[in-house]
Each structure stands twice: as C-alpha cells, then as structure tokens.
C-alpha cells in the first residue's frame, strides 16, 4: 500500500512539474537542473522528520548524529543534564505558575500519575459480564491503535495518501476512506471488517461519522463504552469529535442520538467560565463548540482557510473540488469568540437552572445555610453552585433537600474552618446511613476527581469517605469500583501519608464489601488495556490481601498468575504478589510457599515482561522473608539460575536482583555454590553501561559477599579485580547515586576480604586529580577503617594512607566534613603507630593555620580538635603545646566560624594536656577569652563558654578572682543567648565560678541582675542563683536571697521566689532543713495581691513539699496548704496549674486523707463554679492515689450507702 501511495505521488509530482515548466531556454532559478543528483525521483524529504517537534529539546542541537554517534566532539553539557530540572520529579517550580496552582496535587504529579484522569466512573452499574466485555473491547481498540501506530512508524505517512490519492481519482470512490490524517485507505471491505468489526459490523453510518471526525485529529477522548441500543453501531472512540487529552465534552456536531451519554465527568471537567458565557448556547448546532486552542491567541492564524483563499492558492486546473459527504457539518469557530482563560478544559453545557449566570459574579465566601467559609474556589462553583441559586427550599422534594444537605456538609468539610469541619464531619458520619451510599458518593467522588484539588481538600474528602465507609458497611457494595477508581491513585502518590490514607481506605473497603465482592469488582481491571489501571489495581489487590489475609486470596492469585487468556492478567497477578511483601514485610512468612508457587511458573513465561516482574516479585518476597524461608524458594532456584544465563538487559537485571536477595537466605554450602554459578554473569555485567544494571550488580556483589559461603579467597580470585577495574573509576564519583552504591559495596567487600586488600587497591586514589574521586576514596577508607580498624595495615600501606589523606586534606576546595572525618578516623585508628607521621601533620596544620583563606584555617583548626587524643596517646604533648601556642596567637581571628573552630581546638588540647601543663598558662589565656565572650556569634559563644567553663571547673585557682568577676559580668549577657545549650553552659559556669571564689560576690552580681527589664535574663539569673545555691550549699545563699525579698520591687521579689523555686528543685531532700526558715516568706508571698506572685510562690511550695515527703514537716505543709487552698478559684491557666500542682505536692507530703477533708466540702456544692475546681482536685487525687482515699471517704447514715465492713471490730 505504501508503494501505491508513493508512486501515485511521484506521478502527480512529475506531472505538475512538466505542466508548470514554461518553454524557456533560460535556467529557472528555482529549479534544480541536475535532477539526478538533487531530486532523483524520490521524495526529497524522505528520511527527514517532516513535522515540527513539539518537545522543546528534540531538534535543538545542530551537531548531526550518525548512527547515534556524534561526528564532532561534544563540549557542552548533555541534553539530559540541561533538562534535568525541567521535567519529571526534579522539576523546579516555575515562578510564573501561581502559588495557588502549585498547591494543587495535579501540578506536581508525573505524567503517569496524571493518567488517573483518564479513568471515568461511567458504566459502573453494569454487570460483571458486561464489564468484562467492555474491557475486551477496549483491549481490541488498543490493539488496533497499536497496529496503526506501527504502520505509521514504518514510514507510511498517511498525509501523502490523503492529500493525493483521492483528489487524483475521478469519482468519489475514495472519499469515505478519509479518516483523520493517519488512517491509510482501506479499499477492501473484508479488511475493514477485520480491523473494526471485531465486536460490531461497521456499516455506512460509521463511515460518515469517521468523516465528521476529520478536521482536527487529536488524541482520542475517553472511550465511551456503551451497549448499542437499536441498530446503531457500537459507538467507539473513533467517532466523536476528538478533543485534547482531557475527557471530552459533548460534541454537538454529532447527531444528538449518537452523542455519547453525558456523564457527570463530562460536566465536571468544565470550569465555571466567567468569561465564557459569551460562548454559544448549548445545542446550537450551527456553531458547535469545539475545543479551543490553548496558550496565546494564534487561533486566527489557525482558522480554516476560506474558499477564496484556497482558490488563490491552489491551481484551478487538474483538480476537482469534492462535495462534502452527506451529513458532514464543518466545525467552525464563530468569529469574535474571546480567548479562553488558562486552564480551560472543555465546554460545559450549563446545568439547568442557569447557574452559569452566577458564575461570572464574584465568588462568595458566604453560602446560604453554610456560613462563613475559609475559602471558596472558582472550581467549587460547579459542584456547589446549587446552594446559591436561592430556590425556595419548600418547593423541593425530599431527595433534593437531602442532596442539598449533603452538599452543604461537604462544602463545610472541604472549605470550612476547623470547628466547622469538625461538626460537619460528625453530622455526615452520624447520618451516613440515612443519607445512603448513592446520595453521598455521587457527590464525594466527583469532587475527588477535580483537577484543581489540593492536598488538604483531598485529605479531608478521603477522611469523609473513611468515616462514611465505616458507617455504611455493606451498603457500600455497588460503589466499590467507583471508590477504587478514585482512591487507587493515592497508592502511587509521592506523599507517604497519601499512600497510607489510600491503603487504609481500601483495607476498610474490602472489610466492608467482603472478599468475593472485591474480587469480582477488580477482576475486570486485571487485564485492562491501560497499564496504569493494571498497576494501581495490583497495588490495591495487595492491600486487600493484607486486610483480609493472604490465604483467602491465594487461590485467586494462583488462578490469575496462570491465566491462559492474556499475559496482562498474568503480569498483574505476579505484580500483586510482588506488592504483598512490600506492604506486609515479614508477615508473609507463613504463606511464603504459597506465594512463591503462585509466581514460580511465570519464570518461564513467554512474555519477557511477565518474566521480569516475576523476578522482581521473587526478589521482594526474599527480601521480606530474610533471613528465613529458603526452603520455599527451592522450586524456583533452578529455573532462576538457568534462565539468568539466557537473559539480557533489563530482564537480566531483575533476575540478578532476585538472585541477590535469595542468596543471603541460603546456608553456607549452597550460597557458595550458587554464588559461583551466577558470579560470571554478574562480573560480565560490570561493564554494562546501564545505570539500573550497575545498581543491581553492585547490590548483588555486596549481598553475595555478606554470606558465609563466599570466602575471602574466592572474592580475591574472582571478583575484586574486575570490580575495581570497572567501578573504581573517576566517572563513578560524579553521579551521587553511583557514588553511594560503590562506597557501600566496597565497604561490604572489605568486611569479607579484609582491610589491607581493599585499602591497598584504592589508597592511591586519594591523590587523584579529581576531587570527587578523592572524596569517594576518603569516605570509603573512613567507613572501612572505622568498622574494621587498622590492624591489618602494614607499614608501607600505613605510609601511603597517611600520605593520601594528607593530600586529600590539603587539596580539598569544597567545604565538606568527609575529608576531615576520614583523616581523623585514620589517625585515631592507627593510634600509636601514627607517631612518626605526627610531626609532618603538625607542620602541615601550622602552615595551613596561617593560610589566607578562611576555610583552610578553619579546616586546620577542626582537624586539630579531632586528633588531640591520638597525639596525647603518642606522647606528643610538646607538639600539642606548640599547636596551642600557635592557636593562642590566632585568637584575634576575625571570621567567627574560624574563631569558633580555633577555640574548639584549644579546648580539646586543654582537655588532653591538662591545665597545669598548658602553655600558654591559663592565667594568660583566660584574659584573652574575656573579650571574646562578648562575641555574639553562636559558634564562638558555644566554644568560648565551654572553654571558660572547663577552666572554671578544673583550674579556677589559676586565675585571680578579679578576672573571674569580670567574666561573671560577661556571662550575664550570655544568659540572653538564643541557643539553650549556651544558656545552660553559662548557668553551670556561674556555679563553678561561685565555688571557686565564694558565693558572695557572684550572688551580689546575680541579685543585681534581677532588676533588669528583660524577662529571659531574669529567669536565667534565677536559675543561676539556684545553681550557685546548690553548689555552695543553700545556707550561704539563702540569707542574702531572703534579704533581697524585702526590696519593695515586684520583679525582684518574683525573681527571688523563682530562684528559691529552682534552688529547692535542685537541692531535693536538703529542703527539709530550710522549711521553717522559708515559711514566713512563703506565707507573705501566698497572700500577695499579685497573682503571678502567688503563682511563683506556689511553685516554691511544690518543690519544697516534694523535697520533704515523709520527712516530718507536715505542720508546715498544712499551714502552706491552708494558704494555698483559697487560690483554687483562680482562672488564669498558668496560675491554676501551678496551684493545683502545689496542692498535689502537699498531698504527697501530708497524705491523701488529710487533703481529702478539704475536698469533700466542695464536690457537691450548689454552685457549679465551686464544684468544677473541686472535682479537678478530686480527679487528680483519684488518679494518683485512689487506694489511699478509701479510708477517707465520707460516712453515710443511709443503710444502703453505709460501708458496714468498716464497722467490723475484733
């Protein structure tokens, strides 16, 4: 046929060229004379792509590629790299798309995930048989489409045929064959029958419809599977006017009777078109609405050419204007239709009632009967528009009222404020059975299919489904499939929580509907024509299996996996088995044998895809079962291993993956045998360029080397050479995933074959010129040595190793802890053996401390703090002192990051050298630190306070007290730091200093600080006083503190109380000695007017009381309780909480019965205001010490209530 087409064209071409040529002797400028060379009879565009690429990257590069190989060297980044962030999961957010759009789920979905919109909810009420038949038809369509595509790909360009063949023929014989721009002409009817007539016979009407579909051939709309009614032929997707890849709206061009039944979805996809109200009214056949163009308005240029224009352009001779076939109405866009808003998805026929007039108006935030919503989106109008149509509710039927009621509740749940959502959700749940499944789901499910849905809305709607499901139970059955269609996409969402939600719904659904119903519902989708549907169905089935138990599903799975009818079903069946272990983990162990048997036979399947998924399923099963269950895999070992030798490419990768997961399950003997059987394949694949394959073989190697049966000798003899040859190359370090894989695998190999061997092979790479490669090597060395130690390393290797890390350290340009970590690990692992190298290292560090780059200085200082312990172990204290002196010189460093590192290094040197031996002496060092304490940089603060604290703790006497006082003043500033660690360190340092120089001066400083305005500072001062009191014994502090309470200033008094509270918290049982001393002060505080005062006093009481439980201070405690009790009616939450805590503490100190005497009085008080706090105290007491309350319960005289047992007396 292709020959016929091209030869016809050739003839036409020759003819016209001869006709056009004027009888001139001059050479035409446009005509190539040397036709042999330039147009030697062939289509001169043969071999070119004649269409303009849609993708942005296809034709951009100019360098020609011949046989996929470039003639010119490529000196630019690859297309993949340049477009890395333009597509797919890594796509960077386009700042031009509005934030609103970014929040939508659909905007971050991959193309694959977006295929969920291709599914529809039509035809759900069909029987099982009907649905199976529908699926059959879809498959057939798919097959046919594939054939057509194949043909096109094979060079039969339909355009040529359509352009020329019919026009050259006289007569209309060929006219009806026109079908889009791709169907080659089919003369023979028998052939047509074979292609189209699988299910139905195509008669004349069908042809007409095909012609109708002519003008714009675009991807097909949703298949409208519908049972033919009268004689009308099976309406297939080919007939209707095609639309962009969204589900199509009606095509009114069709004869109404033939129009597909309009589903909810059709209307659902249309936006509330504020500006489209100018669009032609519904049913206007003369101006049918067609899909409009997207993007900028180029529609004028793309408008059909007028007859006049055509006359001008085309030659008038030799051509014939054809009559349009009967019944053909041209699809024309009326002139002057405004450009549509972005996001337009097809025209919607307005629902009856004229909502469309409302759509143009401002979006309301308040809907009658709903109240004030959090937001109301444009798209919500088409679902909830009914609520604003102001119809008198009295005129509506019960059903309509119910619909509106549900609508309102759903709107509240979806768009309402949190409290609204809550009540609405509860109402929906409680009334679910009254509303019925039909009324509920027919509104919820379309909402979930909305394209502009956002995460939060989806979450809420899914929640509604979950709650409603629970109530509806088996009433949900007719809706199972539709719910699945909506929920299944959640199973492949990127968001983990969405996946969990999806699983939960499906699992609840299967519990409500029962296994049999679930199977019969999902069965037709198992061999669905669309891979997306099969994939999601497999995942859903796995969830069903986990919900209802694997044994229940096993017989079905076995049948599906052995389906003779279609390999799709087998593929999906195996995929279910693959998903089950991923979902359930080791819970599959009891059923492992059954599951393996299900898929075992598919290893020999004729379809490569089935074989592949089978291997993946086995891998998943083995991974979940590890380390048990090898006996279940016995049957498949042989086919797996023998087949693995025969496979190539992706399938081989999956087989190897399965093998890799099964080998670790085996015992020693078997694993060694089976490893040796497969290793040659694995080693062969080391050189595969495929990333996936690389990942798999690396994994297999590490898994094999982990088993007992694989000996170090074997690894050395067979694996290591090849492994290092292929994977330890610079290229591997550039890709992050490869990098990680290679490092991990090398570490695993080192576990088996020893440190020396592995390190010996890679040690020289640390001096490589590629930084990434050096880093990869250092990281591997770090990991290997930190897990296995450096005992194997011989002196020669030791030298190389130190040399290598030094080079890597010196040459690093990027700030990354990896190299320093590696360096530290190596030095620390070598321990005393590192002694010989230390002078050299110290030289390097000293040199680099003087570098002009701040990063280099920082790294040098960081390195020092990592290796001081080893240096100390090697008796290199003189070197450390030398370093310390150098660091001391650099304390004037201006970069805070570097200064922080220098201080850290000094601290670690002081830690190992000791304060006595430290040079420069502490008394010189500390005065240099005092000004640095004023530095506000966090890293500096943290390191200084640490260093100062250490000195104050261990060697306070090296420094004169005056200096310490100075430091105290600086430390007060530190109490304002943001980082908690700094504040804590500062507080502790106060304690050390107070211990060193006596509490008086420090306390005076701190008490003065209580007068400052800043709250955080006061609180920290109070804490510091508490700490000082703890370290220097309370009696040294308490008098001054209590004296300070006499200052008539609220802040000070509060601060004193707070300090007391911390003090009593820290000193615990020591409190007993101070109870009577402190009671008068507390007495005063508890009857103060200021409630914060009383609150703080209550917390003092709490800590005192808890400190002296059982220590015989009951009298004081009861006294305090009497003062506390009236505060019970405080309402401020902080105050009342402290008061209740204090009462609880006193209850522990004086015993429950005593406090209960206070409680009984108010439990049944006539005023609720009184009852409420009393019951709170009662409940607290009950929870803590119910048993102790028994003797204290009140006595009743009523014989019914009297506790006679207590009267027993012997």
């Amino acid at each position, binding site marked *: 046929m292709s020959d016929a087409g091209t030869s016809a064209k050739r003839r036409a071409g020759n003819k016209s060229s001869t006709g056009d040529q004027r009888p001139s002797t001059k050479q035409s400028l446009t005509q190539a004379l040397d036709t042999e060379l330039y147009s030697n009879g062939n289509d001169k565009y043969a071999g070119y792509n004649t269409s303009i690429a849609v993708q942005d990257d296809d034709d951009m590069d100019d360098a020609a590629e011949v046989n996929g190989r470039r003639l010119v060297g490529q000196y630019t980044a690859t297309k993949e790299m340049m477009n890395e962030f333009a597509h797919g999961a890594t796509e960077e957010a386009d700042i031009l798309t509005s934030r609103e759009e970014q929040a939508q789920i659909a905007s971050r979905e991959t193309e694959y995930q977006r295929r969920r919109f291709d599914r529809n909810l039509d035809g759900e009420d069909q029987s099982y048989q009907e649905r199976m038949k529908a699926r059959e038809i879809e498959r057939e369509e798919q097959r046919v489409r594939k054939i057509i595509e194949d043909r096109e790909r094979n060079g039969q360009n339909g355009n040529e045929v359509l352009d020329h063949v019919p026009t050259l023929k006289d007569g209309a014989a060929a006219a009806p064959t026109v079908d889009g721009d791709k169907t080659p002409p089919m003369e023979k009817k028998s052939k047509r029958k074979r292609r189209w007539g699988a299910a139905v016979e195509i008669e004349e009407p069908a042809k007409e419809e095909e012609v109708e579909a002519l003008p714009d051939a675009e991807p097909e709309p949703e298949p409208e599977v519908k049972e033919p009614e009268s004689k009308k032929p099976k309406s297939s997707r080919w007939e209707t006017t095609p639309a962009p890849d969204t589900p199509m709206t009606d095509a009114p061009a069709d004869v109404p009777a033939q129009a597909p039944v309009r589903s909810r979805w059709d209307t659902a996809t249309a936006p509330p078109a504020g500006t489209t109200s100018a669009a032609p009214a519904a049913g206007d056949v003369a101006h049918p609405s067609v899909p409009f163009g997207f993007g900028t308005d180029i529609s004028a240029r793309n408008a059909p050419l007028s007859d006049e224009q055509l006359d001008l352009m085309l030659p008038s001779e030799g051509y014939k204007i054809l009559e349009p076939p009967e019944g053909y109405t041209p699809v024309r866009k009326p002139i002057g239709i405004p450009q549509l808003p972005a996001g337009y998805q097809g025209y919607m026929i307005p629902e009856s009632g004229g909502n469309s007039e409302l759509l143009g108006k401002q979006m309301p935030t308040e809907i009658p009967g709903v109240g004030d919503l959090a937001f109301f989106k444009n798209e919500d109008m088409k679902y909830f528009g009914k609520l604003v149509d102001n119809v008198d509710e009295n005129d509506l039927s019960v059903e309509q009222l119910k619909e509106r009621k549900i609508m309102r509740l759903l709107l509240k749940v979806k768009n309402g404020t949190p409290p609204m959502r809550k009540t609405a959700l509860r109402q929906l749940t409680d009334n679910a059975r009254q509303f019925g499944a039909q009324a509920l789901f027919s509104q919820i499910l379309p909402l979930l299919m909305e394209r502009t849905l956002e995460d939060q809305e989806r979450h809420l709607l899914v929640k509604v489904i979950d709650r409603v499901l629970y109530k509806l139970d088996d009433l949900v059955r007719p809706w199972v499939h539709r719910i699945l269609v909506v929920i299944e996409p959640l199973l492949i969402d990127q968001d983990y929580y969405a996946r969990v939600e999806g699983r939960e719904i499906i699992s609840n659904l299967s519990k409500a509907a029962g296994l049999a119903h679930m199977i019969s519902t999902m069965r037709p989708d198992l061999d669905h024509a669309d891979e997306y549907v099969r994939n999601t169905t497999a995942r859903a089935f796995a969830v069903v299996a986990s919900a209802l138990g694997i044994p229940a599903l096993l017989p079905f799975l076995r049948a599906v996996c052995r389906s003779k009818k279609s390999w799709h079903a087998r593929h999906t069946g195996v995929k279910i088995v693959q998903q089950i272990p991923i979902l359930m983990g080791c819970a599959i162990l009891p059923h492992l044998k059954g599951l393996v048997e299900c898929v075992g036979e598919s290893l020999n399947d004729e379809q490569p895809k089935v074989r592949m998924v089978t291997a993946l399923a086995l891998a998943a099963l083995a991974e979940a079962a590890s380390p048990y269950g090898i006996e279940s895999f016995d049957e498949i070992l042989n086919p797996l291993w023998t087949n693995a030798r025969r496979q190539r490419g992706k399938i081989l990768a999956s087989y190897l993956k399965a093998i890799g997961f099964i080998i670790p399950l085996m015992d020693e003997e078997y694993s060694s045998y089976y490893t040796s059987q497969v290793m040659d394949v694995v080693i062969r694949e080391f050189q595969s360029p495929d990333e996936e394959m690389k990942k798999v073989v690396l994994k297999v190697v590490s898994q094999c080397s982990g088993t007992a049966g694989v000996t170090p000798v074997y690894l050395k003899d067979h694996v290591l050479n090849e492994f290092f040859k292929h994977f330890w190359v610079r290229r591997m370090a550039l890709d992050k995933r490869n990098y990680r894989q290679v490092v991990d695998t090398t570490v695993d190999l080192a576990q088996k074959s020893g440190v020396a061997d592995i390190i010996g092979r890679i040690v020289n790479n640390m001096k490589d010129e590629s930084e990434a490669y050096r880093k990869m090597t250092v990281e591997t060395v770090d990991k290997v040595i930190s897990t296995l130690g450096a005992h194997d390393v011989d002196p020669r290797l030791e030298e190389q190793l130190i040399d290598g890390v030094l080079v890597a350290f010196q040459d690093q340009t990027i700030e990354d802890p990896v190299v320093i970590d590696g360096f530290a690990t190596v030095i620390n692992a070598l321990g005393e053996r590192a002694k010989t190298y230390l002078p050299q290292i110290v030289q390097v560090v000293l040199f680099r401390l003087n570098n002009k780059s701040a990063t280099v200085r920082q790294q040098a200082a960081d390195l020092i703090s990592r290796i001081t312990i080893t240096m100390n172990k090697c008796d290199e204290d003189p070197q450390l002192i030398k370093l310390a002196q150098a660091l001391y010189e650099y304390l004037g460093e201006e970069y805070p990051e570097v200064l922080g590192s220098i201080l850290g290094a000094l601290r670690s040197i002081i830690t190992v050298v000791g304060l006595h031996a430290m040079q420069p002496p502490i008394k010189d060092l500390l005065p240099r630190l005092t000004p640095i304490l004023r530095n506000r940089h966090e890293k500096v603060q943290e390191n200084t306070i640490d260093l100062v604290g250490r000195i104050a703790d261990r060697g306070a006497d090296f420094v004169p007290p005056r200096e310490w006082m100075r430091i105290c003043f600086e430390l007060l500033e530190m109490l304002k730091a943001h980082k908690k660690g700094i504040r804590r360190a500062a507080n502790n340092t106060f304690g050390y200093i107070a211990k060193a120089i006596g509490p008086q001066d420090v306390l005076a400083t701190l008490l003065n600080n209580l007068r400052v305005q800043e709250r955080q500072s006061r609180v920290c001062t109070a804490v510091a006083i508490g700490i000082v009191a703890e370290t220097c014994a309370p009696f040294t502090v308490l008098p001054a503190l209590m004296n300070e309470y006499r200052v008539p200033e609220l802040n000070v008094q509060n601060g004193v109380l707070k300090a007391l509270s911390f003090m009593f918290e820290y000193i615990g049982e020591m409190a007993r000695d101070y109870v009577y001393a402190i009671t008068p002060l507390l007495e005063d505080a508890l009857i103060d007017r200021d409630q914060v005062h009383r609150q703080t006093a209550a917390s003092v009481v709490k800590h005192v009381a808890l400190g002296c439980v059982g220590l015989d201070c009951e009298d004081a405690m009861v006294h305090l309780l009497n003062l506390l009790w009236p505060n019970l009616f405080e309402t401020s939450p902080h105050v009342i909480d402290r008061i209740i805590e204090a009462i609880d503490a006193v209850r522990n100190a004086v015993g429950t019965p005593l406090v209960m005497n206070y409680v009984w009085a108010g439990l049944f008080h006539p005023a609720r205001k009184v009852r409420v706090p009393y019951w709170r105290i009662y409940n607290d007491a009950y929870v803590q010490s*119910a048993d102790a309350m028994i003797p204290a319960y009140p006595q009743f005289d009523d014989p019914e209530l009297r506790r006679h*047992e207590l009267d*027993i007396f012997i």
Partner: protein
Amino acid sequence: MADKLRNQQQLESLAARYIGTGTSDTTKFEFTSNMARDSLASYVGHPPMLQYMSIGLGQSKERTRIQMLERMVRPVGNPPEQQD
C-alpha cells in the same frame, strides 16, 4: 475556646481510663456507687484487710471475697428514677 476544647478532651480520656473520676455533673448515685466499688475492691485487694474482715464475719476468706465481688453489682441499690 481551644483551651476549653482541649480540657474537655483531656477529661474524656481521663474518664475513659479511670471510671471513678467525675465532673461537676456527677450525681450522688454515681459517686456513691464508685465509692462503694472502690472500697470493696480495696478490701479484696489487701489480703490482711480481707483476712481481718473474714475473721470478724466468721467465714472463710474466699467466701468474703466472693460476697464482696458480688456486692459490686449495684452496690448502693437501683439507680434513681429518671425524671424529666
């Protein structure tokens, strides 16, 4: 408002765990029955106490125990009539 709600929830979870806790709406009947049940449980739960009471009642410990367990059903008689 939110605080009130949280308090309410805390109270509910408390009541779910400890039946004997109450609110300002607890009736005398509820309180006394809980009191009686708690007392009986306490007698049964402390063996010396049970021993003492059995001796006083002149019967075996087990019998006393059973009696007390049985008395936990409606320990203070029937609930008061609902009056609306």
